[in-house]
Every structure is written in structure tokens, then in C-alpha cells.
């Protein structure tokens, strides 16, 4: 049974409709985003599901996950905080920002907070060099930019998310 297709029948069809039917392999990237939406990584089963939909090998799908940096084959934080430390941002204090943010969260770069909510990573240029320090947050199937940041602003947002998640868990 194809779980991806079963779970998102309409979305899969919408994605496939973007490309000529004889070149449906083009749909592999959007389908991987779909597979990653729920858990913020691509579960093994999804590789097979996508391979089946596109009539390509599971290895081919896995190699795409390995090549592109925005797909993950292992779970990380529910939100991935990705701080740009490339040259223009670094000239405006991005390395120090990243280091201080990690210290405040008590983790190393690349690590995840004990509550499993946040992974903090250094990434390459995000096309926001004039608004450093900047990070993007990957989670909930979205990517959202946070620009002109300070450690205080970032921590305030992190606490907000923590409170939101806690409130949700209380209710359920």
C-alpha cells in the first residue's frame, strides 16, 4: 500500500500535473517535500512510495535526498534553525550570533535541544546578506526567514514556540 498516495491523494496529483506525463520523474523533489512535511525528515517508507509513484528505483530517490541539503534522512529537531555564516553575514557578526545562540540553548552547532524541538545549524548564503544576522526555520513543512536578528530576538521566538507546543500538548 502506498502510504504517501493514501495520505495526500490530491497533493500528489497536483504535483504530477505540473510536469509532462512522460517526464514525471521531475516530480521527485516536490514529492520529497511532501514526504518530509510531517516529521521534518523523509521516512524510509516514503522513498519506496515515491519510487513507486514515479516508476524509478528507491536508490534513485535516496540519492536525491543525499544530494540536496534541505532533505534529511534522519530525524532532527522539530524545527531546524539554520543560521547563515557565509562571508557577507560573517562580516556582520553571524559567527558570533551562532555561537551565542548555541550557548544560550546549551548545545553545539548541529546539535538538538533536549526537548527535541530545535536543531541549530550553520548554513550557506540565504540571499538575505543585507539583513544579517539571519536564519531560516525549516519545520511544519515550511521554510520561514527571520532577518535582522539578535540573540534576544531569536530566544524570544524560541520561547514562544515552546509555549505554543506546551499549550497544544496540554490540550491533547
Amino acid at each position, binding site marked *: 500500500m502506498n502510504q504517501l498516495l493514501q495520505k495526500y491523494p490530491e497533493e500528489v496529483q497536483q504535483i504530477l500535473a505540473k510536469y509532462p506525463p512522460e517526464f514525471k520523474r521531475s516530480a521527485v523533489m516536490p514529492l520529497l517535500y511532501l514526504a518530509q512535511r510531517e516529521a521534518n525528515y523523509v521516512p524510509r517508507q516514503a522513498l519506496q512510495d515515491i519510487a513507486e509513484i514515479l516508476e524509478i528505483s528507491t536508490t534513485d530517490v535516496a540519492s536525491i535526498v543525499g544530494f540536496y541539503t534541505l532533505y534529511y534522512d534522519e530525524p532532527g529537531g522539530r524545527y531546524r534553525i539554520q543560521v547563515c555564516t557565509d562571508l557577507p553575514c*560573517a562580516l556582520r557578526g553571524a559567527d558570533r550570533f551562532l555561537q551565542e545562540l548555541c550557548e544560550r540553548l546549551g548545545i553545539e552547532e548541529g546539535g538538538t535541544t533536549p526537548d527535541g524541538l530545535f536543531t541549530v545549524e550553520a548554513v*550557506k548564503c540565504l540571499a538575505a546578506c543585507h539583513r544579517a544576522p539571519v536564519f531560516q526555520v525549516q519545520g511544519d513543512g515550511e521554510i520561514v526567514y527571520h532577518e535582522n536578528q539578535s540573540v534576544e530576538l531569536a530566544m524570544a521566538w524560541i520561547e514562544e514556540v515552546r509555549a505554543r507546543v506546551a499549550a497544544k500538548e496540554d490540550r491533547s
Partner: protein
Amino acid sequence: MTTTPHLLLRHREIANLDQLEVYLQHGGFEAFKKVVTQMQPAQVIDEVKASGLRGRGGAGFPTGIKWSFLPNNLWPHYVVCNADESEPGTFKDREILEGNPFQLLEGVMIASYAVQANLAYIYLRGEFWQIAHRLDEKIAELEKAGFLGENLFGTPYSLQLRTHLGAGAYICGEETALLESLEGKLGQPRLRPPFPAVVGLYGKPTVINNVETLTNLPLILEKGAAWYKSMGTERSPGVKIFSLSGCVNRPGNYELPLGTTFRELIYTHGGGVPEGRQVRGIMPAGASSAIISITEDRLLDTPMDYESVAAIGSQLGSASVIVLDDSVDFAWLVSKTVNFFKHESCGKCTPCREGTFWMNRLAQRIINGRATPEDISLLETVANQIAGKCLCALGEFSVMAVTTGIRQFRSDFEHHVNGSGSTATGG
């Protein structure tokens, strides 16, 4: 279309220009309608040729000439808009996509008509997730309003637009890697020739243009080539968005005529260098630049056009101007650029894959104060061995800052190996 002080960043004067009604009120889609209902495709290509518009993605290739390479006996044709924008220091396409998206879409549509493509893709870097979703909504609005779809304006011409999100790979900005990625494969460059104009997307003739290039088209088609040529320089006509970053008081995008000087950009528009420090170097094309060493003040008067920047040993590229003042350690800077290219090498060709790995090791060793003086020469040697041997330009880009950095700022490197080696940074 109303002309404001900005031609591409018109949203800076016109509020809510990203709304279809507002864009229409300001002359939106009149150029597209005129082209489809009154002009032959060849006439459109001739007009763009005559305007002298050159590609804004980096290489500066004349746009109209590129379009004319598509063979008319091989169909279908495709148009692909390159919105991968990943060069460190570049953030101009993003502002167009966010602020003035309809002008870009109209540009894609004009290009599509010119080469008679019925399907065009906009390839966006994965990080532009929000932008892509907004574009999808705008495309749906255009379909509803009758600007996209079948038999446009009662003519036989039909056109559809689609977005496609990448997933974090600088190499996918390279046009053949982009096509591979769009076909659902690893983003690795193809051997050329054949060029995409003949064998492109799905093996068919394809035009690939940068976001900014395409955003010029509605105005060129409305106001004509002569009007466009009246701006900029003889060989680099028109306006350009300069992404200004690094050691400046007011970093940001500045839309100015090609041929504007570095001095005007940095001091008049960018508000000068913090704390009145001196400009020591400039990278005019992002991390891929040959570094310009400002050994003499008059170098700041170099006009920023394709020819003049090349004449002083660098290149304009995508015009991502990173300003470096006298507080910056150029060995640290080189370690940053090399680390970028090591991370982004696609791994397909050996000189780039292995070379960027070794350059990164050596540069890290130098700035960590663990290198010998020979390591500096070794870094230079490795860079020289990469140059000219790679499958695509990424490998060439990776050595630019290394070779020009060591040649012109050697003392910054020596400082680290002579014992005093602190882990200096720029920030």
C-alpha cells in the same frame, strides 16, 4: 507602463505592486498583450537584440542573441527562469520576486512568446518556499484573468507557467545543473556542447534566463530598444541592481545605470564604510570574485559595467558587491569563500571536488595558526591546479579569491604562520 525612478524595483514607489489590480493599473500586461496580438516572434527577438540587454545572471550574454539560437525545426521549446539566487552576496532576485512579481512573470511570458514556448518553469531555490507559494497564487490569478492559458487574447498562442523548488544546492544555479535538477536528477552540470538552446529541458530547445534579465522585458517591449539603450553604457546598456553588502553603513539593493562607479555605490548610496574606515578590497561578483585590491583611491572610480570591471582584473558577474575594509583579515576571508565552494562542489569532476577539499583544509590550517609558510604556497599551487580543468565554472569560481587574495594580501596570510596567528574574524 508608468516609469518611476526605479524600473525593476518599482514596488519601492508603487505600494502593493504585488497585487494584480495595482499592477494592471500601472500598465501591467499591456506589453505582453501587444506582443501576442501585434508582433511576430522574430520581431520581439529583434527588439530585445536591439536593446542590447545582457544576461544579469552572471555571464552577461546578450539575451536576444541567445534566444535566436533556438532551432525552429525542433519542438517544443521551453523557457526556464533561473531564480536559484545562491551566490553569497546576491539578494536582488529575491526582492523582485517579493516586491514586483508580476513584472517578472510578464517578462517570462514575453520570452515564452518570443521563442514560442507553451510551457515555462520558474526554478526557485528551496529556501524561497514562501515566495514560490505566493507565485503559485499569482499564476492562478493570471489564469483566471485570461493572461495565461489557451488561445490568449483570441490568438492561437497558449501558455502555462509552473514553479519548481530546488532544495539547497548552489550548483543548481548553473544552467545545465538546473535542468538536470528540474528533470528530477542530481543537480550536476552537463557536458557542453550541446547547449541548452538546442538540447535543453527534456532534450528540447530551451531558453534559460535570470530573474532580473526577464524583469527588464516588459519595459523594453513597451518603450522600445532605443529608450533602453539610452541608459547605461554603449556596450552595457540599461539599469542593473547592485546588491551591496559587507562593510558598508547601508547594505541593500541599489538599482542604478550600468557604469555607475564603485565610489557612488558605496559612498553616495551605501552611506560609506563604518567608522570612517578605508576600503581595502572589493568583491564585485560575490564569493566568486577576483578580489579587487584598492591600492589607489582612483580604483573606486571604476565604472561598474562588464568591460570596465574586467579591465581591472575582476568581473561584474551578478553585481553582488561585497565591500571589505581595513579591519578585515583576508586570510580569514579566503577561508570563508573556500569553505563555501567545498560545501557546494557537486562532486562530479575530480579537480573541483578534491581541489576544494584540499584548499579548505589548508585555509583552515592557516587561520588556525597551525600552518607553515610553505602551506601558503601549497594553497596557491592547489588553486592553480584547479583552474582551467573543471567541468563547469564553479571550480573556476572557487580559486578566484584564493589566487587574488594570496597575490595581493600575502601579509595577511603570513601573519598567521609567523606565530602571532590569532583566529581573527571580520565581524
